[in-house]
């Protein structure tokens, strides 16, 4: 601390005196900075140790939380009408067309449970990538040789919310502006290497792609590859669903909140024959797509796991 104050004093002097005095003060400052740099390097080693300890503690904390808090799972299965989504299966949509989904992905963020007084309890670092997609190359800028394995991820779980009475759930589709505007910020599962940032010029426009849908459209109007992306701050949407009845959560008990994501509703709202491509350059359609994603969620149940 004393060195820091000394540095500030020298800087203050350097900023307020003439050229003739500056060089000596700069040299003094330089020497002190070198000393501080050496100390910082030593501190860096200590920080690595602390980081390992922190990770171990975090693991222990999670295990402990699972004992004192409820274990809550949020399931968000993709469905098409009454059936579970099957990739590359032709589903009937309006106008005699069929739609075969190649992949569907979106950022599910800002998860929170609602108390009876309508306040919310947030899940810390609640940034999750929900997806149903085949194996695909990592396309960070140009396509790379690295492959992202096929993934079907339609559930998250958390143990950080304390026991209590909850009457609903809230989450967002997309990424909040603070993180969306700065790709260097990391939180939860946010990362630049998930094919959810740089496609189709997004890097030149904003940060994360909030939702990504690829599908094959076929029918009387011909075949087309549907490509729907959105992702500007204006496209962030909140989903707020009330539970059928309040749930009383207790420590170490498992609960499941099941919310189906109905792609038939999505397709009806967006109308793929009218909107084959939605992207950075189509703000009106991006907004419509964001609304459609928000509106496709239907709460099925919220209860303790038997």
């Amino acid at each position: 601390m004393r060195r820091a104050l000394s540095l500030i004093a020298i800087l203050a002097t350097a900023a307020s005196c003439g050229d003739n005095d500056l060089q000596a003060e700069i040299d003094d400052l330089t020497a002190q900075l070198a000393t501080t740099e050496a100390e910082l390097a030593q501190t860096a080693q200590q920080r690595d140790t602390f980081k390992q300890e922190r990770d171990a503690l975090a693991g222990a904390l999670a295990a402990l939380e699972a004992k004192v808090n409820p274990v809550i799972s949020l399931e968000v299965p993709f469905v098409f009408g009454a059936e579970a989504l099957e990739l590359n299966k032709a589903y009937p949509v309006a106008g005699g067309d069929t739609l075969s989904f190649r992949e569907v992905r979106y950022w599910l963020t800002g998860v929170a449970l609602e108390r009876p007084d309508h306040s919310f309890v947030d899940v810390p670092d609640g940034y999750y990538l929900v997806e149903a997609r085949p194996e695909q190359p990592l396309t960070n800028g140009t396509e790379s040789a690295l492959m992202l394995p096929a993934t079907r991820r339609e559930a998250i779980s958390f143990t950080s919310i304390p026991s209590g009475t909850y009457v609903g759930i809230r989450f967002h589709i997309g990424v909040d502006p603070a993180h969306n505007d700065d790709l260097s910020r990391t939180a939860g599962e946010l990362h630049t290497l998930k094919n959810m940032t740089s496609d189709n010029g997004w890097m030149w426009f904003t940060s994360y792609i909030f939702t990504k849908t690829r599908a094959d459209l076929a029918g009387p109007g011909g075949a087309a590859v549907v490509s729907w992306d959105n992702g500007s701050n204006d496209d962030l949407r909140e989903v707020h669903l009330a539970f059928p009845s309040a749930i009383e959560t207790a420590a170490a008990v498992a609960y499941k909140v099941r919310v189906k994501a109905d792609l038939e509703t999505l397709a009806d709202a967006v109308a793929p024959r009218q909107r084959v491509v939605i992207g950075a350059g189509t703000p009106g359609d991006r907004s419509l797509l964001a609304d459609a994603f928000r509106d496709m969620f239907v709460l099925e149940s919220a209860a303790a796991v038997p």
Partner: protein
Amino acid sequence: MTHIRVVIGAGALALALVATAVLVGRGGAAARPPRRVARADHFPPAPATRSPATRAGIELGRRLFFDPRLSANDRISCATCHEPARAFSDGVARSARGISGATLARNAPGLANLAWVERLFWDGGAKNLESMVLGPIQHPDEMGETVARMIEQLAADPVMREAFARAFPGEGVTPSGVMRALAQYLRSLVSADSRYDRHVRGEAGGELADAELRGLAVVRAKCARCHATELFTDRAFHDIGLDPPSALPDEDPRRGRARVTFRAADERAFRTPSLRNLSYTAPYMHDGRFATLAEVLAHYRRGGVAGVALTDDEADDVIAFLRALDDPDFVARHAR
């Protein structure tokens, strides 16, 4: 917005920027000119940043800026098109030095005083320096690199691993670290030591000739609506009536800031560049269409949406003053 100032007792001093100027001047070639503290406390307040600079972060950013491993063929660095000797521009209208050899859509702008800029690129499409830096790295016509390959290469280099460890202890070599380090380096590029700056600060070497003083008065009276403050830019976007609006024959003539905002009022609008270091950063405009300052002034003198009425003498005085905004120490300090 926040002031880059630290209050000590009753006085408020631009310490952060003073420190930055000192730090960037350290290390490197022995033939460098004497270090000099460039005070920027006559500049307007700078926006807050989430990633405060450290010496190790700036140094890592500087290494990355000049590192060709950030490109797909390992031959193109940021400095390929942002040469320090040209105040971080490249001297051509639109570069073809990128990975594909294709001529780019925009002129490579000079880099200085970016700590005061919140929206990057000619159309402001990147919201901060951290998010901006991956744009050129990944662009298929610029550096064409993948983030994954870049990280793999950097992480395999023990020198870079050590540099990342100093800058971001415990984090390893990460895309986020690359973004933050480059952003810190770019924010450290403070140009505030032109003859005009010394004139403002009342320092030796700040004498301006009569023509330059007359030119200053003309700039303040007739150009400051856009070239505002001591940054000589309002950091906004304007349609200045360029005809045609783009040098690209097949580009939508409505492009510009409207690419980002989708507002008709922003069509053909591009960033107001600073008037600093213009001797190093020719040619001018977003597509580099004007080779000389005389051509630039001729455009404004023709009238139109951004027309400026200038007599021949006033135009000569303006150009004389603009030379006083050159910062040769800034250029020399960052040359390798």
